[in-house]
């Protein structure tokens, strides 16, 4: 059995201080827990490619704290045709990083954003300035044609802004928004109130299509098998911890060997043979759907890398993990222009409306457009054709100006919303491409081997 995907936690370290961190990265950062070397990781990546994985998730900690390694890993996977997702808080995505990521054919970026406002996001993430860096990262990547998903961790503190946050994502032009409840592992297992109004989120997700056209709003439960055949019982792929320990997935705490000492292929063989051992299945059954991880005898990311053949932890080890305090880095700061929903949305709108586009590789005949890369043919009505014209090259603002001139009776607000929807629709078909995109090829779909935790 071959693995379909692989998840690589390149580092324990993170620059943020999220109280709910499922990997307990703030504690590891303060403790300076060592990671595998660059050479070790590159060897693991080569082995994963040789094993035949189709998709990979690059995560941490914050992977871009190991910037050169992360870029090299992504580039190698992409060159081999592996669809890759980068989980990041966006802090370190500057123009150089964005250019390197945009050169990939099959990369999408999952960027954490917990609030519509800087005040809410930064409080959630424990560090001032994170919101502005995340939004800037999204704009940089979207301007270059990299699909971006907002990953929104919903907590009692962040859920009041969920709808405003989705609107902000739409204004920015992100591909999708994923609402994620806190998984009570790692730091979140130490305590805290993470209970949220799940039915409300479900309603938001169900009605998102009408409100935010062309931008899926997803509600994830953390199921590893989303998008895969339900009959497939074997795990989809291995997860490699920053220490090299290999697990089935994030919410499963048992280690099936060490990726360097035993080889990734060797660890995968152990997973295939041993994932359904009775003790492990018993642990699995106690979890239920989302799982009450924090109450189990072995807690993912709190009890580190517990060997699958001895699935238990000691009370002393547990006590030490629970005692480790993780102070937030929050400090008093003047409320900036993004501290209010109105200010934050205005900023997102400004970025989205000013983004430059150019014509993709297309052939136009009358009202029909053929996309060279896919052969797909679309029909554009007069106003859609006007948007295409105005953005070849141009911005949403240019298209609004053009439509306003042709239809002066329409309100500018309505025209702007229509133009933004049309650009989404044209860009999704590669009829329009972001001006800074490296190629005319359409961006690939987001991965199916979704390992959000």
């Amino acid at each position, binding site marked *: 059995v071959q693995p379909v995907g692989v998840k690589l936690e390149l580092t324990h370290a993170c620059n943020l201080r999220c109280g709910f961190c499922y990997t307990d990265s703030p504690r590891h950062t303060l403790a300076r827990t060592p990671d595998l070397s660059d050479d070790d990781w590159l060897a693991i990546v080569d082995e994963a490619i040789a094993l035949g994985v189709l998709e990979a998730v690059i995560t941490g900690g914050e992977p871009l704290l190991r910037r050169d390694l992360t870029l090299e890993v992504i580039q190698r996977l992409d060159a081999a045709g592996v669809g890759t997702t980068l989980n990041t808080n966006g802090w370190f995505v500057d123009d150089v990083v964005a250019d390197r990521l945009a050169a990939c054919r099959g990369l999408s970026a999952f960027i954490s954003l917990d609030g519509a406002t800087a005040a809410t996001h930064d409080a959630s993430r424990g560090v001032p300035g994170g919101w502005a860096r995340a939004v800037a990262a999204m704009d940089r990547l979207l301007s270059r044609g990299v699909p971006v998903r907002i990953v929104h961790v919903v907590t009692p503190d962040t859920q009041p802004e969920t709808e405003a946050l989705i609107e902000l994502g739409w204004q920015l032009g992100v591909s999708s928004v994923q609402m994620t409840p806190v998984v009570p592992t790692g730091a979140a297992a130490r305590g805290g109130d993470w209970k949220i109004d799940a039915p409300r989120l479900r309603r938001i997700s169900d009605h998102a299509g009408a409100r935010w056209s062309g931008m899926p709003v997803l509600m994830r439960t953390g199921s590893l098998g989303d998008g895969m055949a339900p009959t497939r019982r074997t795990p989809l792929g291995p997860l490699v911890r920053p220490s090299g320990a290999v697990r089935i997935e994030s919410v499963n705490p048992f280690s099936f060997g060490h990726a360097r000492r035993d080889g990734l292929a060797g660890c995968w063989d152990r997973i295939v043979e041993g994932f359904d051992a009775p003790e492990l299945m018993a642990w699995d059954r106690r979890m239920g759907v989302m799982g009450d991880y924090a109450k189990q005898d072995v807690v993912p990311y709190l009890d580190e890398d517990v060997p699958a053949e001895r699935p238990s932890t000691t009370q002393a080890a547990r006590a030490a993990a629970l005692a480790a305090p993780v102070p937030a880095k929050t400090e008093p700061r003047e409320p900036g222009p993004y501290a209010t929903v109105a200010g934050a949305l205005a900023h997102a709108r400004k970025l989205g409306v000013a983004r430059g586009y150019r014509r993709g590789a297309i052939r136009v005949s009358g009202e029909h457009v053929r996309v060279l890369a896919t052969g797909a043919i679309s029909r554009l009505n007069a106003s859609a*054709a006007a*948007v295409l014209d105005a953005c070849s090259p141009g911005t949403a603002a240019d298209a609004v100006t053009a439509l306003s001139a042709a239809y002066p009776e329409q309100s500018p607000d309505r025209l702007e919303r229509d133009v933004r929807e*049309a650009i989404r629709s044209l860009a999704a078909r590669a009829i329009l491409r972001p001006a800074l995109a490296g190629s005319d090829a359409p961006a690939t779909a987001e991965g199916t081997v979704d390992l959000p935790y």
Partner: protein
Amino acid sequence: MRIPMPEEQDTQYEAPVVEDVDVSEGPSSVAPGNLSIPA
């Protein structure tokens, strides 16, 4: 492609629509070899 002038367009505003065109029944489906002959 160009924006139609007001005098030549339907003055009624219609929101932009981008439709996928199904070309499976287009000319290539009756190319030699694809023709189905009624029994």
